[in-house]
């Protein structure tokens, strides 16, 4: 509640000097800073949900009876006992497990596919290039239900669970990996590899000393994207999960009752990890440039 109020008040204080300007100067000041003000407002708009998640991770539990999602008081209990509801932690573990496995396979296959699409001329290359976009363009609900139909048709209706989720996640992550790695590869000057070969590097040395280090940021980015897509996915997963519960499905399940505050702890940890990765990447890039 207070978080919402706080942002509400920043919004109105930002606008107030404009509403009643004492003649000239504030109006001119506003005109000069309008882009800055709008920028800050937009940033605030995107940060509010994150701020709420972080704040709520320190919230006292909400009683079963209360239907209102409000801040009851500060506590560290959620952080000290993240697994108060063991089913949440097992769902979280399963999501991480699926995410890592799906990322590993999708990144491997996708990187190989990207190399084939950029580096080799073969029949059906342009068609493959086009088809690779299909899973990205298709609505998730369609993908999920077709996959389910396929699993059922294959006689796997009774075995829906961990592995069917894994297969589904690899499927939709793959396109993103191919597209990301392909962009990185296509942007690389062919002459670099030729120069390496010219300088006595065998094809294997050329790959490991030149190609791979240069494409690696693309592969890493693709892997991170894959993990977050897999970790995040609800629709496709929900249709193909059988009795298995992933973290998003757990959150969906409990959201109709009362939400345990530990979900916010998980959310906060995820945000901190992503932020750390971005900051490390930035500082490395800056060090390289300096």
């Amino acid at each position, binding site marked *: 509640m207070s978080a919402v109020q706080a942002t509400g008040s920043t919004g109105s204080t930002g606008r107030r000097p404009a509403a009643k300007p004492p003649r000239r100067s504030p109006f001119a000041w506003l005109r000069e800073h309008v882009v800055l003000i709008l920028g800050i407002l937009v940033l605030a708009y995107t940060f509010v949900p994150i701020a709420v998640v972080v704040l709520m991770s320190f919230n006292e539990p909400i009683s079963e009876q209360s239907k209102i999602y409000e801040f009851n008081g500060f506590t560290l209990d959620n952080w000290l006992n993240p697994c108060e509801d063991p089913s949440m932690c097992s769902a979280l573990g399963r999501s991480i497990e699926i995410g890592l496995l799906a990322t590993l396979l999708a990144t491997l296959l996708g990187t190989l596919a990207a190399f084939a699409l950029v580096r080799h001329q073969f029949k059906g290359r342009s068609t493959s290039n086009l088809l690779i976009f299909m899973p990205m363009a298709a609505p998730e609900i369609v993908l999920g239900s077709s996959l389910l139909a396929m699993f059922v048709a294959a006689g796997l209706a009774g075995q829906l669970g961990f592995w069917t989720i894994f297969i589904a996640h690899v499927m939709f992550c793959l396109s993103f990996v191919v597209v990301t790695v392909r962009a990185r590869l296509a942007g690389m000057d062919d002459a670099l590899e*030729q120069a*390496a070969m010219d300088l006595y590097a065998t094809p294997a040395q050329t790959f490991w000393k030149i190609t791979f280090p240069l494409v690696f940021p693309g592969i890493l980015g693709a892997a991170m994207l894959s993990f977050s897509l897999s970790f995040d996915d609800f629709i496709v997963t929900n249709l193909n999960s059988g009795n298995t519960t992933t973290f998003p499905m757990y959150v969906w399940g409990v959201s109709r009752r009362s939400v345990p505050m530990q979900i916010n702890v998980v959310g906060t940890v995820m945000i901190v990890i992503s932020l750390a990765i971005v900051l490390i990447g930035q500082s490395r890039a800056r060090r390289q440039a300096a």
Partner: protein
Amino acid sequence: MSQAADKQAVERTGGSTTLGKDDHTTYDGLRLRALTKSFATFTAVDDLDLDVPRGSFFALLGPSGCGKTTTLRMVAGLETPTSGTILLAGDDITATKPYQRPVNTVFQSYALFPHLDIFENVAFGLRRRKQKNVESEVKEMLDLVELGPQARKRPAQLSGGQQQRVALARALINKPEVLLLDEPLGALDLKLRRSMQIELKRIQTEVGLTFIHVTHDQEEAMTMADTVAVMNKGVIEQMGAPADLYENPRSTFVANFLGQSNLIDGTVVGRSGDVVTMDMHGTPVSVPAGRSHTASERGWIGIRPEKVLIGAPGEALDAPGNTIPGGIVTDVSFFGVSTQYLVRMPWGQELQVFQQNTGRVTIFRKGDAVELSWRPEYAFLLDHAQDASAGADKVGADG
């Protein structure tokens, strides 16, 4: 003892003058034989024969698309010839991989490894061949190209000229049999290009390696190379020392691509001894037989604009033999060191004349009547079947 040595010497000279098939193994330079590269729609290099002597600075000159870069890439091993052979110091390297050839390339885009610093870029070739003393050799090479203090920077932090020198150092450090330079100065501005030309020439003289320099800039080729091969449409039109090529071109393409030429229609009147007598629109002119490159009855009489003398009608010009009256000045450009005239001749053609500004000459004005003249030994005669404007549009390609 001394007789045996003499005999050996005779055999060796015999080997280098007659280029029989069996002598390939004794030639220590780069030799291309019947080299052809065809792509789906066109032939980039057509049945090319070429000898590049060891230790020479050799330029392959031609307009874009003439096949010079393809030739270079075949020598580097980056392109596989459709047919023909490449021999280096007697070894057939046609089928070997780029990393197996003692040949290094300075790429047009430099192709510096962006994730490695300058030191590691230069050390790359040494490290791949597991050489010792990498540290000291790289330092020495970076000093040669005056980049010692930049060793730990990345390529992106250097200027274009510095990057160019890194690319050169990275190739040179391997002491290749042949160093290939693919338009290495193309990306530099004019002033930097001139200073790098001098620098490259200095380094080549210092290290004594064979340099093959591909360029479309005729001035660059002429100032740097010992031998220039002018390439056009996949074949070598003419090859020789820059001065020979310039003074005695064998085709209209070479005459126009290297500098500028006036090419005038003429008919052969007689051939006697070392002089070919021509009728040029009613004026008798002669051309030395050694500079005549056609056996047919018609030909293009060629004369460089700076060899043409210009004077008022009746003025005694220092050029015995050929005097062509009836010219009218149609354009005058004053350059300071020289004056460039366009003179319309009685047969309608406009000839170019460059007159050195010695201070003693009259500067003509547009519309003045003039006489032209040249010393017969400066003229050359080309095959009339060739296009008189071939290679003349090079100004647009330069840049």
